[in-house]
């Protein structure tokens, strides 16, 4: 291979040279690279969103908690506890090096698959009576959805695969087949629950990781096209989820039945107006809107905080997501960049789908709103995921590090040796 050194390469070489020299200073005495501090903007955004979310759980849930349990702060106290634990989990997760996540990627995937199989076994998996779907595993002290772990498993394994097949991602054999196989297994198990929204999210995140990982866009386009055609055939010609589509197009066609939830959500959002009814002043949570502290918590946010408050919260989410991608863009290595992208995309998809559902932009399906929706294990997993991004952020080489402060900083951070 003839060496081609042009200006760009040379500049690049120079930059890398400088970069490398600088990074060398970041190695500690044990020869391991020293890590930067966690990305402060992401931490702040996460904590702000989490705080607002937990407080909103209080507002949204106290009516139902009062009427059904008798203790208005029941859900809030639990959620707040999980939030505190979640913050710890986040910082803990940020301490692990990304390499370790890469090592455990396929193990997590394996656990996910096992959990997804377990949840299908009657007696282990539980579900809500009204949907008939089996999505939860009861751990005694709490319940969790294996699909939440599966999301992490898919992100980690896809990122790892994209690193392993780095050069071959453009081929069908390496760029599509292994990913497709994993997705087929995971989604297949999810469909058995059934868990449509989980499947969509995992397919979305998986697809995005393939896309970023370097799979040729034509393959993705082809797969996307096939999926689209299949979806249209399913809905238009085979009548799959026809009721759901009909309700989506006109929720008022069955206001007390299938359209009830959507209508109640629209009432909540619409009556919020520009400035909202005020925090805690919402009315729809008084046993009108179902799932008001779960999937439909954003409707209560809109009702109480109005358009201004809702847009502000969406803005915070947008900042969080942009910061996540920013970290991915600045990640030191390919794997870190991919997992940061995957997790950020996961949040983006969940936020978008959740708000789209509660505003009836999309047909009704169960997607929770990260940091807002009530649910302990889901929150822990979300915080863990943020922790992973933070872990990636910590490996971004420090631009300015004062020589004399290295030790102090190390000590104060209590860096793991």
């Amino acid at each position, binding site marked *: 291979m003839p060496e081609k050194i042009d200006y760009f390469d040379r500049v690049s070489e120079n930059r890398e040279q400088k970069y490398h020299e600088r990074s060398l200073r970041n190695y500690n005495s044990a020869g391991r690279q020293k890590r930067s501090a966690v990305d402060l903007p992401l931490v702040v955004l996460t904590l702000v969103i989490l705080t607002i979310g937990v407080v909103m759980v209080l507002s949204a849930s106290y009516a139902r908690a009062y009427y059904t349990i008798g203790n208005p702060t029941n859900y809030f106290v639990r959620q707040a506890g999980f939030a505190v634990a979640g913050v710890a989990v986040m910082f803990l997760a940020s301490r692990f090096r990304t390499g370790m996540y890469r090592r455990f990627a396929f193990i997590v995937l394996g656990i996910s698959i096992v959990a997804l199989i377990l949840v299908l076994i009657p007696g282990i998996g539980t579900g809500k009576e009204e949907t008939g779907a089996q999505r939860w595993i009861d751990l005694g002290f709490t319940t969790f959805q294996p699909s939440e772990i599966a999301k992490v498993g898919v992100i980690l394994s896809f990122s790892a695969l994209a690193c392993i097949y780095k050069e071959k991602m453009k081929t069908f054999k390496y760029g599509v087949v292994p990913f497709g196989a994993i997705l087929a297994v995971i989604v297949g198990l999810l469909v058995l629950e059934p868990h449509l929204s989980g499947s969509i999210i995992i397919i979305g995140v998986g697809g995005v990781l393939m896309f970023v990982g370097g799979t040729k866009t034509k393959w993705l386009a082809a797969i996307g096209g096939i999926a689209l055609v299949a979806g249209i055939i399913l809905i238009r010609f085979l009548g799959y989820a026809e009721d759901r589509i009909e309700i989506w197009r006109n929720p008022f066609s069955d206001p007390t039945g299938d359209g009830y939830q959507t209508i109640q959500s629209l009432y909540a959002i619409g*009556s919020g107006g520009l400035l909202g009814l005020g925090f805690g002043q919402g*009315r729809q949570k008084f046993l009108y809107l179902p799932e008001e502290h779960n999937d439909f918590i954003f409707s209560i946010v809109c009702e109480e905080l109005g358009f201004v408050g809702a847009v502000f919260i969406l803005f915070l*989410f947008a900042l969080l997501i942009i910061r996540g991608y920013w970290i991915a863009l600045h990640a030191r290595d390919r794997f870190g960049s991919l997992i940061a992208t995957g997790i950020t995309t996961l949040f*983006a998809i969940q936020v*978008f789908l959740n708000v789209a559902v509660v*505003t009836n932009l999309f047909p009704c399906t169960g997607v929770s709103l990260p940091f807002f929706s009530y649910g302990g294990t889901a929150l822990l997993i979300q915080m863990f995921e943020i922790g992973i991004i933070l872990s990636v952020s910590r490996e971004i080489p420090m631009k300015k590090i004062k020589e004399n402060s290295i030790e102090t900083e190390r000590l104060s951070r209590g860096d793991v040796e």
Partner: protein
Amino acid sequence: MKYQRSAERDMRPNRTILSRTLFLMIVCGIVAFIILVAKLYTIQIRDHEFYETQALDQQTNETKIPAFRGTIYDRNGNELAVSVTSYSVYLSPYELKYYGESADTVADVLSQTLGASRESVLKKTEDVSAWYKTIAVKIDSETAGKLREAKSENNLKSIHIENDTTRQYPYGSLACHAIGFVGTDGTGLEGIEALYDEYLTGVDGNVSRLAAGNGTEMLSGTYEQYIDAVDGSDLTLTIDAGVQRMTEKCVKQAIEDYDVQNGGCAIVMNVKTGAILALASFDNYDLNDYRSVSDEKQAELDKITDRDEYNAVLREAQLKQWRNMALSDTYEPGSVFKTITLAIGLDSGAIKTSDSFYCGGSMSVLGRNKPLNCWRHSGHGSQSLAQAAQHSCNVAFVNIGLRIGAETFYEYAEKFGLFNKTGVDLIGEAGSQWWSEDVFFNPENLSQLAAASFGQTFNITPIQLITAVSAAVNGGEMVKPYVVDTVTSPDGVVEYKKDSAPEYRVISEETSQAVCDILESVVADKEGTGKNAAVAGYRIGGKTGTSEKTGKSFENGEKEYIVSFCGIAPMDDPEIAVLVLLDTPSYSTGLYISGGNMAAPTVGNIFADILPYLGYEKTYTEEELAVIDVAVPDVTGMAASDAAAELKKAGLNAQIVGDGDTVADQLPPAGAEISAGQTVVLYTGARPDETQTVVPDLIGLTFEEAINTLERAGLYMMTADLYTGNEEAIIWKQSAQSGVTVDSGSVIEVALAENVDEGIE
């Protein structure tokens, strides 16, 4: 070093990752959120009002503030119909279950406070999905208070007490057919209550409060909306409760006296304005309990065991008692209609007051194969127009009718409002039935015209007749009968005031005056068939009628009649008309069945009561003064001679018992009303002990004979001014029956009437 560098490089993201991640950042971090914000904008800003309204609609519980229905007053401001606050009680079995309340406790509380059946309450509690089970309506505030207490004592949230209003009729059955009643939902079903429902009904207000999805009060939120109730407007009627009561009393008495089979009715109307002062119809009913039938009917019903039959009979009895005979039933008016024939004849110029008519007992009419008989088969001979009316001579009136001619007759009949409903503001007015013009106008067959001349072969309602007669006597102008005079809004604004001005002229004033003169003679003249309507002190006119009920007869084959009398007073300036109809008096009373014998005295009774009540002054004739009731003056303590003189002044004689100088006692006592010319006993010494005497039989005696008979028995007589000196009149009714023992000196009230034969063909 080289290895490390390449390893570093290997680990760094490549260009594809960078550009694709950047792309994602833009799509997921910016574009997606723009879409969401746009969607939120449409819902929260653009469609805000729609969703807010819808949401509030479901989030609020409305509590009704019932509006009071307007009050119905009589012309003097007496309350005929009022709305009062009441309460209704309902049970929410859903809440009973929701709050875990004991069905037994609820049933106990409801049965103890409201008297509700425990079993039925328990049965209602079983339907746990129901929110609203009515337990009781129209509960008074005292009972509601007791229930409220018991409710809070037992902390029962499933029992609800709601405000409501109830219609009350303080006078019970008085003027029931005019006033009408309201249904359980508060809308008028009959009479004025139905016709003026729009005015009477108010607009209910409400309070909207936030409520949770399970119906309980919301824990937070400040939204509350209060819309005050607007009460209904008040009505002031032309009906006078006093006149109404007197009229009902007299008609009821007549129905009893003459054993009237199918009830009767009476209308008292101001002939100058059309204002109806009283409207009575029998059977009647209690407005406060309009479904209940009379005790006799109920006793009859109680014998029926079959449920369907029971309901059918009950329904029939209810419909009958609700039926306003004065408006809803048509009849052949008979001789009372001769008033109208007379007016048409005089006004059209067909006859003059100076004309004379010969009645040979019958006459032949073109187109009629049998001769037409006068009710007096021997004939009335030659008679003046007034005499013809006094005799109610059919032959004379057929002649008048034939002179008028069919076309003119119909022309006037229409002007007198006999072809159309009067339009009186009451429910259930029936229309009239007349021959079609081609039959009536047939020159080859005058039998229809002939019969119509004396009020047969067509059907009109009593209200049409009295309205036509009013026009005939009030100076000749048509008035429209009405009951509601003013409608006043709750804030005192008059929303409606009846314009009682006459509508148009039917006959000339002169004709009207002539008709009045003749009608007065029917009552005042010796030969008049309406003599029994006379009331001492008043100038009364009128016309009798006895109409055969076509196709109806008693079981023994005897004919059924409607007897009627339309009286007018005072005749110097007619203002009040009274029409009384008695449907099917029985033969058992021994009187001739005729308007003159039965309806005329009833009208007389009504006039005797209402004219003084309405403030008409009495002016007695010489003849009347000799027979009217006078109040015995107090002469105790006077010298005997002075006392006698005092009594003489009052039209009474004196008999002095004892040998003292001053009157120590008198019999009858001061203030007693007795017929003039009787002898008052004055005791100058000690009054003898109370003695008792047996009431003699007075039936069939004349006035003089009766006074003498009573004097012998030591009793006194009064006639309540209903005797005016008619020597032909005999007593047919006495207040204490013969053979009854009473205290000496008691006053016996008697009713006299001349047994007048008239009017039946």
